[in-house]
């Protein structure tokens, strides 16, 4: 119940800072839209399909990627590294009877919901304009599995960013690391091109990293391009990454707070 209150309180904050949230959403919007424009031009010029992808599936993919970028890209690392660790706000969390991870999850969730809602609105506008060209799964059994994959994707993204933020306990400036993983996420999450269009070696690497489980598989699951037979493997991969990241988070949290020194508060 107390976490619900935290969630509701921060939900109000989210709306107080809706302009800031909208800018974050615009950031998530630009890249997929540009790439969609590129592919549209390429398909119209060549008039062909590419490894099973055509203009319609590509358009659905990138539009869903806008929602994924807005809903599944957790930004909690910035708050943890700069405010909690570098400015010392972490000390106030240490004396509260709350789980630090859960507290941060419920701080972040309202932002994901609002930005995800912006993404859904854009998707619906495109769907309204282009009609059945923008397709997603509509049968409930597949949709339920897709929602499960999305939720697991969000949790993987959350713990990944928690670890990244906590890395500031050991580094004076975590921005280099953050930029490195942002780029890795763009390439191996499927933001540049759908992962099955990558060269074989890079594709294998992409499928073994957590980024594909955060963005690519949730998008293809909801789009319907993910084969039903592959879903158990995807779920297994997601559970594996979630467990591994949670264990890593627990370990560095325990070690990290022993290192932490704060000023002021």
């Amino acid at each position, binding site marked *: 119940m107390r976490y619900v209150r935290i969630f509701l309180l921060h939900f109000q904050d989210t709306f107080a*800072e809706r*302009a*800031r949230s909208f*800018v*974050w959403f*615009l*950031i998530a919007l*630009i*890249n997929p839209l*540009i*790439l969609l*424009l*590129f592919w*549209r*031009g*390429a398909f119209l*010029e*060549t008039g062909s399909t*590419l490894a099973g992808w055509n203009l319609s599936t590509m358009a659905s993919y990138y539009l869903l990627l806008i929602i994924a970028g807005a809903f599944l890209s957790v930004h909690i690392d910035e708050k943890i590294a700069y405010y909690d660790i570098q400015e010392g706000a972490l000390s106030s969390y240490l004396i509260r009877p709350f789980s630090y991870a859960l507290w941060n999850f419920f701080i972040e969730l309202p932002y994901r919901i609002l930005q995800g809602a912006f993404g859904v609105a854009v998707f619906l506008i495109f769907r309204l304009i282009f009609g059945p060209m923008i397709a997603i799964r509509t049968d409930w059994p597949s949709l339920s599995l897709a929602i499960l994959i999305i939720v697991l994707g969000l949790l993987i993204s959350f713990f990944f960013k928690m670890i990244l933020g906590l890395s500031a306990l050991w*580094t*004076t*400036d*975590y*921005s*280099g*690391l*953050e*930029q*490195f993983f942002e*780029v890795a996420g*763009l*390439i191996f999450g499927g933001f*540049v*091109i759908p992962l099955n*269009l*990558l*060269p074989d070696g890079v594709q294998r690497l992409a499928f073994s990293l957590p980024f594909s489980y955060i963005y690519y598989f949730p998008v293809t699951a909801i789009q319907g391009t993910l084969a039903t037979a592959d879903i158990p493997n995807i779920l297994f991969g997601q559970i594996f990454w979630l467990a591994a990241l949670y264990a890593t988070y627990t370990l560095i949290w325990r070690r990290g707070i022993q290192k932490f020194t704060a000023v002021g508060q």
Partner: protein
Amino acid sequence: MARYIRIYQTLLHLNISALTAYRANFTTNVTSSITWALFSIFSIVLLTARTSEVFGWRREEILFLTAAYSILIGIFHMVFSKNFERFSRLVYYGQLDGILLKPVDSQFLVSFWLVNYASLFRIIFGVGFAAYLIHQYHIPVSPVSVVGFIVLVGVGLLLLYSVWFLVASLTIWYPRLSNIVQFMYSVSGMMRYPQEMYRQFAWYIFLFLLPITFIATIPVKVLFQRYVFVDILGLAGFALVLFVASRKFWNYALRFYTSASS
């Protein structure tokens, strides 16, 4: 003018001192700079892997556009980006007071205070990649076209700076919009693609994006000697008009600056 050059020389020295004092920061900045340079190239290589020509540009020409983008954005990040990143902080915490009190042009000080030397690596990377492409694909370039390219990169930088400054000035009214800088990073990424790609948009959207699409495309077209004179005029015209607009808008915005305590 000579006074401002002397001030900038001092700022360059001060920034070198900061760099030697915070070596770990410099290392992470170099890492991120090289990572983004690699990403620009790698993403275009992937996108064009299955197509030899798109929007009237051959694959090697699009790759060269990416190299030009790396040089241009590298210079921009080295000279300006860090300053824009602290823009909202200056306003939010009222630190702009100190800048406004100094007997130096405030736009100059907020634009040139910090220098990110780590971006030098991105510039070097871009130049190296451009040289490799010219050599590998036997791209015909003449000394005149190289000079034209360098001059227009300068004009493009002025245009890019003006657009960023206009947008960043909005933080006088909305100091919490610190992520507007991240937004501009994304918008600047649009320069990596051929201008012709954006013609797919409705004319009014295309017209709105036109200045951004000019910045890298026109210098590259000049280097390849396939430009139209109107394009160069367009780039120079936009740069001049938007630079003047950015100055006027800054002075107008300052009227609404109320410092942190008021």
